């Protein structure tokens, strides 16, 4: 095929409903014959395979347009239905219209006054938004539905009943009577246009009678191609089958009508047509059986083709397939550059790059053409006339090569240095696709540097990755400028490095830089050379008897000159200090050069010397470390966990002691002397004590083991440097595994009162509930092994569930935010131009260009300046004056920071000025660039870490007696904007004057806690005479601080007059009530409020700093704020919805930000607050709290296609058709679907050329 430049312009897509006239007009043939092919295998004219409907076979010419199958788009036909048939997709619309109009005069069933009132509203407000219009229509509908009699003709309106999917009944006095499709059509036809406008239908274009079909369009054969099986049997598409059914039954309706069959029989046949048409549109409608294929498989009809993950929208339109891509297993190669990727020769020979022949490259390309299929060669040549020559078929490649001339295009093999895109799924963040330089290597796997495993989240246990070769100059250029690995070192999620040393590199770095590592001159020079160091060699640290260099000196060689850095030691040892590019002291480990560690050496190098310097640094240092570690050797084995008998004894002792203490606890529990805990039952308290004791036992055992393992033990080295494993893991291997848990509790399930048949029922021994005394080295006994497997299974299930949940959450976030971008004025807007944020992230700073979230690292700037500063410190006044000059160029926060740091710095004026100038410079560099797809970045930055969250809810054992949903479920709850969180809770602060008063706090807590009357009633009795007796529980009353009088007053209502008989008895006389209603009254009283605030089930006083704070279970902000003594300005709830209703939308936004940050922080996941701001702002732009999902932000998108591609595809399209919506194609999903460049990032930029002038110049 020749290369063509076809300019396709789609301005938009209008959705609408076809009228029968239009269907007929579009039709090229009326289909009447239910047969598809005749006996000779030729399509029957007027059948479903009529040649006028388009072509299927390549050679065939279309009977309508004369094109071959490549160009003929196919043409619609039609079926004339014998009787009107209701279209399933519009049933709901028909239903409401029938409910809102009169059955006799077919007018809108509202009186004239109201009609004219609404008309006036619609006419007057010209700038009415679609939303308001919809609201008005909704109001009219709900009013009209309630009317019982037509104000126009006075006829009664019957209730209309819809029996799903398509049958309507009128509920008349004499009983339900069926409304036939034909009469519904007649009814709808008679409704006047003006009334329809009021009901919210698109004015001129759409008539409701079109919702009832008279003509059915028949899609062209290209839509339902038949497949010819190997056996030569033709197999028809599901749609064709369905259409045949429709044709057959339709035929029968016609025949029986003509033969004058009784209406009842005809109606049955019409219902059959209705069934077939309904299932033709949607084969998953509830209420009717699915249509099946002969084989028993349900038919995949129109709706099913569009819907779901593999449907047309998500599977084909949003998910484009590409050429020039490749997939294979990955393996590591530390000898590569971090931005290289190793590509097998076989792959390089298949993936090609089209290179245009010019005078400068013609010789090289000629050679490639001569080489042909031999690497490096070429596969195709494209001549300027568009003919493509396949080199495999060419006999004399030399001749072809000689014919090469500028203007030809050679599709050459991939060679070293070509830019390719490398990707690993799931593509959770933008670093999941990066641009690498190709490095063609022997072998069959893709090779990548271990340091880039982190951003891809790859390992080498069989992972596969994808590779794409950009084909155009623009694509390659863009990839090179924006996507290279070194440009992705800093993650936009938290503004720190995500690429860095991992695993053995960290071990090696530690071994190289620890204090006693000395290298001989030979070793040193060799390693320096491996790292690519060419420069003067430093003086050896030790000169006698032999010249020895310290490992740190080797490390220092690769640090940039003039680089200064200090880091507090992460574990015992000296601080890491780098002065002028020399590592003076400290050992290098994960916190210095590790991946995902902000403020490390690596981070500072990227920020101060740029990404290329950082890449070079990483390459060299990692290569050196690898070489050093390879020569030195590093291993781990069984023997590493050997403990001397004394240590083994100590481990067992630690566990045995714990078991003793547990026995003691159990004894105390039985005797009832166990100290209780607030809010916990004795059983719960005991369990808690035991669990604590056991976890202490495990820790102690671990500590013993750690003590006996030396510092140069391989496992210890790995754990300490952050290479792999943790002290806990070492404990598991050498000491004891400890308690196995299921759902955060000890194992209890299994047999009755025991976990396994090997234990006695209710065995108090911790062994019986899954405590493992053994370690991995010595091995587990069978029972322990079983418990371990139980715990392990939970872990697996948890991971599986979590990936699903977080995947769906991320999909929702991305769909909700993908269209947001930064405009040239640094506002964040959607494609309609509506503002989401007035300044991106409130300060306009790009998190990936920020320094760990900060626009400018002022401290570091000042430190650098202090090194060169000379002279007297600046006066405070002068500093103030200088700063005031910068107020308009920097934000208040930076000014504040500068002021504080500078006044302490004692820098002279000149240097202060330098700092200020540099700050502005850096600040402006850190600003976000217009076009940046901040929405997607934010969605990814929240979605990606959520994969790592724990699924479980945490229980604040002992400390705070409340269960709070945390982690992933909480995050999902927040973006769902649920009405009620699963664990609502409040932090109630007291006014300053009472804050430190414990008694007061307790009193308030007691007031707040909700209690029912039943809580203080010991027993109650019902006398048939109508007397209810309540016997009060004195203790309970004391605890709740209530008197019998108070209880009586709460029972008292207008009718009920309780009497207090004595201190603990209240009686209530109810007259004229039967025993059953007496019981009902009694229960109602027992369940009604005694005191406290509804919703708050528990209130506990907790100390926070110096003040007492009340923490609650349950939430009721509005009521609590009104309680005297409570500080209403600080009291807070975790129920966002409640905050919105009581404190407004801005408070809800602030609370959302707080809660999301808290959830992430609590899980130890770093997310830049700007991303959270964006999510919160988006959820609140409409003034209401909107969910991230189909009922909120995504559902509110202007684009029909974007909504259809997200969820509920078919109803969305039907609704768009009814409303006559127009797709403007301004967003991302829509653009992808129709194949336009996406309007964010580089796709937002357009080049405009004044064509007129060029034309003139040419004509000259």
């Amino acid at each position: 095929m020749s290369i063509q430049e076809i300019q396709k312009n789609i301005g938009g897509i209008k959705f609408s409903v076809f009228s029968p006239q239009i269907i007929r007009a579009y039709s090229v043939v009326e289909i009447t014959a239910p047969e598809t092919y005749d006996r000779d295998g030729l399509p029957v004219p007027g059948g479903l395979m009529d040649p006028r409907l388009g072509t299927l076979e390549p050679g065939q010419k279309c009977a309508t347009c004369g094109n071959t199958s490549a160009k003929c788009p196919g043409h619609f036909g039609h079926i004339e239905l014998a009787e009107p048939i209701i279209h399933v997709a519009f049933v709901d619309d028909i239903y409401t219209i029938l409910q809102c109009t009169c059955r006799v005069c077919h007018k809108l069933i509202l009186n004239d006054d109201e009609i004219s009132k609404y008309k006036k509203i619609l006419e007057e407000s010209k700038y009415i938004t679609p939303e308001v219009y919809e609201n008005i229509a909704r109001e009219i509908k709900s009013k009209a539905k309630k009317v019982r009699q037509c104000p126009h003709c006075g006829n009664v309106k019957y209730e209309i009943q819809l029996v799903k999917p398509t049958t309507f009944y009128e509920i008349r006095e004499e009983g339900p009577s069926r409304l036939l499709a034909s009469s519904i059509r007649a009814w709808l036809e008679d409704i006047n246009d003006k009334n329809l406008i009021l009901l919210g239908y698109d004015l001129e274009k759409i008539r409701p009678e079109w919702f009832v079909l008279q003509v059915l369009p028949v899609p062209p054969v290209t839509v339902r191609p038949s497949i010819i099986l190997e056996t030569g049997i033709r197999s028809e598409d599901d749609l064709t089958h369905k259409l045949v059914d429709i044709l057959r039954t339709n035929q029968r309706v016609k025949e029986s009508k003509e033969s004058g069959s009784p209406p009842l029989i005809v109606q049955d046949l019409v219902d059959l047509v209705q069934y077939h048409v309904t299932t033709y549109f949607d084969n998953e409608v509830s209420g009717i059986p699915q249509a099946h294929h002969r084989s028993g498989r349900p038919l995949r009809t129109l709706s099913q083709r569009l819907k779901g993950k593999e449907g047309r929208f998500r599977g084909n339109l949003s998910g484009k397939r590409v050429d020039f891509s490749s997939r294979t297993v990955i393996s590591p190669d530390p000898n590569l550059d971090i931005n290289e990727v190793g590509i097998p020769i076989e792959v390089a020979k298949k993936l090609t790059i089209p290179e245009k022949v010019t005078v400068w490259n013609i010789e090289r390309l000629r050679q490639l053409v001569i080489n042909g299929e031999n690497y490096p060669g070429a596969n195709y040549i494209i001549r300027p006339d568009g003919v493509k020559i396949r080199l495999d078929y060419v006999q004399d490649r030399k001749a072809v090569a000689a014919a090469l001339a500028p203007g030809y295009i050679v599709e050459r093999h991939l060679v070293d240095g070509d830019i390719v895109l490398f990707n690993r799924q799931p593509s959770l963040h933008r670093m999941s696709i990066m641009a690498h330089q190709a490095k063609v290597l022997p072998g069959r796997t893709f090779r990548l540097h271990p340091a880039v495993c982190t951003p891809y989240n790859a390992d080498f246990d069989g992972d596969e990755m994808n590779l794409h070769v950009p084909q155009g100059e623009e694509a390659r250029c863009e990839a090179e400028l924006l996507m290279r690995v070194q440009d992705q070192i800093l993650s936009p999620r938290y503004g720190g490095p995500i690429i860095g040393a991992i695993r053995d590199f960290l071990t090696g770095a530690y071994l190289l830089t620890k204090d006693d590592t000395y290298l001989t001159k030979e070793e040193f020079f060799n390693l320096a050379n491996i790292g690519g160091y060419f420069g003067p060699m430093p003086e050896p640290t030790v000169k006698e008897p032999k010249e020895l260099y310290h490992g740190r000196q080797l490390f220092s060689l690769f640090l940039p000159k003039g680089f200064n850095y200090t880091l507090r030691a992460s574990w015992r040892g000296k601080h890491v200090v780098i002065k002028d590019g020399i590592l003076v002291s400290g050992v290098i480990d994960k916190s210095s050069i590790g991946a995902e560690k902000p403020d490390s050496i690596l981070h500072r190098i990227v920020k101060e010397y740029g990404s290329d310097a950082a890449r070079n640094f990483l390459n060299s240092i990692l290569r050196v470390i690898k070489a050093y570690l390879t020569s030195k050797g590093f291993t781990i084995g069984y023997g590493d966990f050997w403990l001397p008998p004394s240590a083994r004894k100590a481990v067992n002792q630690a566990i045995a002691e714990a078991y003793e203490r547990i026995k003691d606890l159990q004894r105390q529990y039985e005797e009832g002397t166990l100290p209780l805990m607030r809010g916990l039952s004795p059983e719960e308290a005991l369990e808690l004590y035991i669990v604590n004791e056991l976890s202490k036992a495990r820790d102690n055992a671990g500590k013993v083991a750690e003590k006996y393992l030396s510092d140069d033990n391989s496992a210890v080295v790995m754990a300490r440097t952050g290479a792999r494993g943790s002290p806990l893991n070492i404990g598991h291997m050498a000491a004891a595994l400890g308690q196995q848990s299921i759902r955060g509790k000890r194992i209890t399930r299994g047999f009755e009162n025991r976990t396994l048949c090997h234990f006695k029922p209710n065995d108090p021994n911790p062994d019986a509930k899954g405590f493992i005394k053994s370690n991995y080295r010595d091995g587990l006994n069978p029972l322990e092994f079983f418990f371990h497997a139980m715990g392990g299974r939970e872990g697996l299930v948890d991971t599986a569930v979590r990936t699903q949940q977080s995947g769906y959450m991320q999909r929702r976030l991305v769909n909700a935010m993908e269209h947001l971008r930064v405009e040239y004025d640094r506002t964040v807007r959607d494609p309609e131009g509506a503002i989401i944020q007035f300044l991106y992230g409130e300060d306009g700073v790009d998190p990936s260009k920020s320094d760990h979230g900060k626009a400018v690292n002022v401290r570091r700037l000042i430190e650098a300046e202090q090194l060169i500063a000379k002279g007297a410190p600046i006066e405070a006044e002068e500093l103030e004056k200088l700063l005031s000059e910068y107020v308009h160029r920097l934000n208040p926060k930076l000014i504040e920071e500068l002021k504080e740091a500078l006044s302490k710095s004692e820098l002279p004026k000149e240097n202060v000025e330098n700092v200020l100038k540099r700050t502005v410079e850096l600040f402006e560099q850190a600003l976000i660039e217009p076009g940046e797809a901040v929405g997607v970045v934010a969605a990814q930055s929240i979605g990606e870490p959520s994969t790592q969250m724990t699924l479980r809810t945490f229980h604040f054992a002992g400390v705070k007696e409340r269960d709070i949903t945390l982690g992933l479920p909480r995050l999902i709850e927040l973006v769902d904007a649920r009405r009620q969180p699963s664990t609502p809770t409040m932090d109630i602060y007291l006014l300053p004057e009472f804050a430190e008063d414990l008694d007061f706090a307790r009193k308030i807590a007691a007031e707040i806690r909700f209690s029912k009357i039943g809580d203080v009633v010991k027993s109650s009795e019902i006398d048939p005479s109508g007397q209810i007796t309540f016997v009060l529980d004195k203790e309970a009353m004391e605890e709740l601080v209530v008197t019998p009088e108070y209880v009586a007053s709460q029972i008292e209502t207008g009718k009920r007059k309780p009497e207090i008989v004595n201190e603990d008895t209240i009686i209530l006389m109810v007259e004229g009530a039967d025993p059953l209603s007496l019981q009902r009254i009694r229960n109602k009283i027992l369940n009604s409020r005694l005191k406290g605030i509804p919703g708050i089930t528990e209130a506990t006083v907790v100390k926070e700093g110096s003040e007492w704070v009340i923490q609650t279970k349950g939430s009721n902000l509005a009521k609590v704020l009104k309680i005297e003594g409570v500080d209403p300005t600080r009291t807070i709830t975790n129920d966002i919805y409640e905050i919105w209703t009581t404190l407004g939308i801005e408070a809800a936004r602030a609370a959302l930000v707080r809660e999301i940050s808290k959830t992430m922080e609590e899980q130890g996941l770093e997310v830049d607050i700007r991303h959270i701001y964006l999510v919160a702002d988006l959820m609140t732009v409409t003034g209401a709290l909107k969910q991230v999902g189909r009922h909120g932000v995504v559902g509110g998108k202007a684009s029909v296609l974007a909504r259809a591609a997200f969820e509920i595809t078919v109803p969305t399209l039907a609704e768009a058709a009814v409303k006559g919506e127009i797709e403007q194609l301004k967003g991302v999903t829509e653009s992808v679907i129709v194949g336009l460049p996406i309007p964010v990032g580089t796709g937002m930029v357009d080049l405009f050329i004044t064509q007129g002038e060029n034309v003139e110049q040419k004509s000259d």
Partner: protein
Amino acid sequence: MDKKVGQKEFSIMDHILVPKHEILSPEEAKIVLETYRVKPHQLPYILSSDPVVKELGAKPGDIIKITRKSEVAGVAYYYRYVIEG
């Protein structure tokens, strides 16, 4: 309940979660619309039923300026257009 607690009338505007809201004069509103080159309906909304709007006495059609305390910038401004709801 303890009656000795002398409490001044609490306004939701004093709550730590509620940033400062103020109604813009028509002139100020015009400046905002011009700076961002938007029609009012392109601004973020705030419902007329919002508790803060009620307390301020703002009417649909007003523009409310919100001064947020920002963790990253110190102070950040936001504008919301009051709509019926």
